[in-house]
């Protein structure tokens, strides 16, 4: 059966999609993160082994992705709050979204080295 087309929403709709996807993603990560942190109650060794995996390049990269998700969710969350509570919020929602994206890009670029330095140094040396 030929499907209907995708609704061509604009900034508002796509930012909401991204907000939702990142929210769910963070939720699952948080779940895992509490579990692994709980290992500090088991033994220092167990904890350190798990943390070791955080330092592998792949997971390190995923970590960068996670930060990207959290940052977007956080910044856009502030935009949503502004839309809801500031009377001019709805009017400037698009401008605010582009600000969010701008700040997000800047922060992500800034965080690139600090977060990935572990991987970078292990690959390319100091």
């Amino acid at each position, binding site marked *: *059966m*030929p499907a*209907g*087309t*995708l*609704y*061509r*929403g*604009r*900034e*508002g*709709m796509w930012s*909401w999609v991204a907000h*939702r996807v990142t929210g769910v993603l963070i939720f699952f990560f948080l779940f895992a993160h509490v579990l692994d942190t709980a290992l500090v109650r088991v033994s220092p060794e167990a904890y350190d082994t798990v943390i070791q995996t955080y330092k592998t390049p792949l997971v390190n990269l995923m970590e960068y992705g996670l930060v990207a998700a959290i940052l977007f969710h956080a910044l856009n969350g502030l935009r*949503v709050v502004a*839309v*809801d*509570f500031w*009377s001019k*919020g*709805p*009017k400037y*929602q698009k401008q605010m979204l582009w600000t969010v994206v701008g700040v997000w890009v800047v922060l992500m670029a800034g965080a690139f080295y600090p977060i990935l330095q572990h991987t970078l140094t292990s690959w390319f040396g100091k």
Partner: protein
Amino acid sequence: MEKHSAALDAAEAGGTKLITVTVRIRRFNPEEHPDPVWVDYQLEMDPKERVLDALNKIKWEQDGTLTYRRSCAHGICGSDAMRINGRNRLACKTLLKDVNPEKPITIEAIKGLTVLKDLIVDMDPFFQAYKDVMPFLITKGNEPTRERLQSAEDRERFDDTTKCILCAACTSSCPVFWNDGQYFGPAAIVNAHRFIFDSRDEGAEQRLEILNDREGVWRCRTTFNCSEACPRGIEVTKAIQEVKRALVTRRF
């Protein structure tokens, strides 16, 4: 007249050139076939004509079975909300030149309401939500003999939401409404807003209570599809926000 802008010249130019447009319509007739199909129609149109004119031309000259609602043909009656190139619009308020007539123009029924035939959907749930917000003036006490007074500012307060023509473009563009259709939807909230902020009305508390429902304003995720879709230019999301804020401030 000496005042003559290029826009006016263009508007007055007679014998405009016709272009060939392809209109791709998602047809559905359960009497004939259980599944919808996309059908292409080619026609010669003046790009300054409306999408509704194109549909009429198809119905009148090519395929009389094509079915859609229409009446006023100038964006005032709310009959012909449909999804044109993926966005909800009124066919009679959308000119061909504004939807890129070089490429096929896709047209399908609005989303989230049962499609009954071609572009016709079941409007029942939509109007039910409207009726549920008690969309009529509620007053207490004796009627005055003359009109109720209302200052121009008080009248302005809810002007935006009085413009609604109940076309359903907003509600059927809302991703929350698509899911299970239980959400009251932006149109119902707009019409509640029209009375909540009318200084003459005394039923605001009741209406706010209704919208405090599980399926009320709190389901809105501020996706702004409704505001983008509204052919009357109503700031729908803003109206919803005002209702939310009224609820919060009234409760605390």
